[in-house]
């Protein structure tokens, strides 16, 4: 299930076609975006390092049956399906931020979720399709003044198992 609250979160999972992040409207548009995101994906990135820079928390298992998360991070933008300026603190003036995930091993087509929490309150859950053998995908958060404060993104598989938790803050 994919849903959106407040209209600040949008999905764009791309590879090669790399569309600019767009502001999607209501739920119908969101479903369309999710479908597009599922179709357009990245694979065989050739980058082996799973390490990303963000606030470190307890590392949940980043591997479930048939699915291995090799990279995850919150960044300022995604270019050529690569995260740009991965960090732990972002200025609200940045406009938007991205949660980038790269799955090194995908055995079969499945879905993952990006769950965005502001001060432990779930604000948005994004459903992203991923395809074998390897897939990179991301979700985006449009920043508003009220979004300042501590955030976390939980990356979970189709069964809700937490693959990784990324923690960061939005400041002035």
């Amino acid at each position, binding site marked *: 299930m994919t849903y959106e609250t407040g209209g600040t979160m949008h999905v764009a999972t791309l590879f090669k076609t790399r569309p600019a992040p767009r502001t999607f409207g209501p739920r119908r548009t969101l479903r369309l975006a999710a479908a597009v995101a599922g179709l357009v994906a990245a694979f065989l990135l050739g980058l082996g390092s799973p390490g990303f820079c963000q606030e*470190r*928390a307890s590392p949940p298992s980043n591997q479930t049956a048939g699915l291995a998360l090799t990279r995850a991070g919150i*960044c*300022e933008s995604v270019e050529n399906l690569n995260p740009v300026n*991965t960090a732990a603190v972002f200025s609200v003036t940045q406009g938007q931020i991205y949660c980038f995930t790269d799955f090194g091993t995908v055995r079969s087509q499945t879905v993952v979720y990006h769950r965005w929490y502001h*001060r432990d309150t779930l604000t948005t859950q994004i459903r992203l399709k991923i395809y074998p053998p390897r897939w990179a995908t991301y979700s985006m958060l449009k920043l508003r003044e009220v979004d300042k404060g*501590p955030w976390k993104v939980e990356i979970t598989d189709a069964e809700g198992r937490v693959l990784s938790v990324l923690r960061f803050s939005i400041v*002035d």
Partner: protein
Amino acid sequence: MKSVVLVLSSIRWQDVVDILINSYILFRVYVLFRHTNAFRILAGIASLWVIQELAASLGLILTSWALQAITAAAAIIIIVVFRNEIRSALQARNLKNFLWGSPLEEKSSPVQVLADTFFQMAKKRIGALVVFPGKEDLRELIHGGIPWDGRVSQEMLMSIFWPKNPVHDGAAIVEGDKVTEVGVLLPLSQRTDLPTFYGTRHRAAAGLAERSDALVVAVSEERGRVTAAKDTWIKPIAQTEDLVHILEAHLGIVHQRDPLYRRREVTRLAVAGVLSLFIISAIWLGFTRGRDTLMELDVPVEFVNRPAQFQILETSANKVHLQLHGSSAIVKSLRPEQVTVRINLTKAVEGRNVFPITKDNIQMPPGLFVNSVEPTTLEVTLDVPGTKIVPVQVDWTGKLPDNVLITDVQVIPAEVQVVGGKTLLEGIHTFYTTPLRVDSLTESGSITAPLIITPASLKLADPAQERVEVRFSVAKRSDKKGPEG
């Protein structure tokens, strides 16, 4: 008339008991203290208080103020000055005597036997010294007595003062029909006007007599004379009858034998009893049926009998607003801590419990009544204690410098163990540090920061973890954007 009936109809059995107990206490105070100087002073103080109240009601500021000061000082002075009298009045030989004893039932000394014995001893040249205490306590004046507690008889007194008896040199104390102590040392008189032939025994008799209200009889072994001493006088007694009269006068036996005196005494006690009842009834009516006054009070709620396996997670209110009413005297004397609201958690279950606040939950002094309670119900959420590992996150704030990128943040420890109610812990996912400013962060480093643990009922398993270390990496932002990690 109607209001009198109304008051009478509202009297409870507890009120009747209340009045009777206090009337009896007042009556007993009168019985125990009458004929003492302390009682007369007490009556004087009571009169002063009445006058002071009168002066206050008339608006005589200086008079009422001065009388108030005098009354307060006099109350302290009376205790200090008359401490011996008060002590002897309150000293009961037994509890029954203290609570029920009547002055008319006091055991009288066998005066005739005593007088005869003294003259017999004089005849036989047996020296003797016998003390008949009055109302005052003699313990601070006499020393070295040996308890005796023997019934008075000629033979016993003779044997006590028999020259070869080890205690014959001291004085014997006779109370009622008993010799209570023997071998007692009395204070010697310092008077210079006593006849030179008076020896130590006579000086001791005069010494105690002038320091107390006791009567002391001395028998001289050299001259074979009986001498009596009381207050400041000391005189030889020639006839047995004279000594009997002196003893009877001292012990009040003359009056006790007189039927007219007894009748007068019974009447006096009856009047005192009725007066006590009247005074206490008046005070009670003034106290409990005075002007009805309203009072508002915020009372903290006490939760009692909490089942051991639960802890209180949340309450809808910690204080209850009470509106009470009662007589102005009771309301005025009320202290807030005398009113309590108590919720019994014996039957409480895990989760949310709703308790109505009724009169049974409110404890307050008698004479007060509840007008209203706000809130009328109280919600208490109980929980089972548990622990949870909670991750820690930094709460950054401020303005991030334009050319700076905080690329990595590490919190040490990354997780803390917290103890609290299980239901409460279910809703806890992250603990945050106090807000840390990013404005001045230009290079990598570390900061220590306290954790915000809310709600307050939660406690860290290790209190040392209340502060965490935050390590951060700072990078200069480059214009070139590219892959990282």
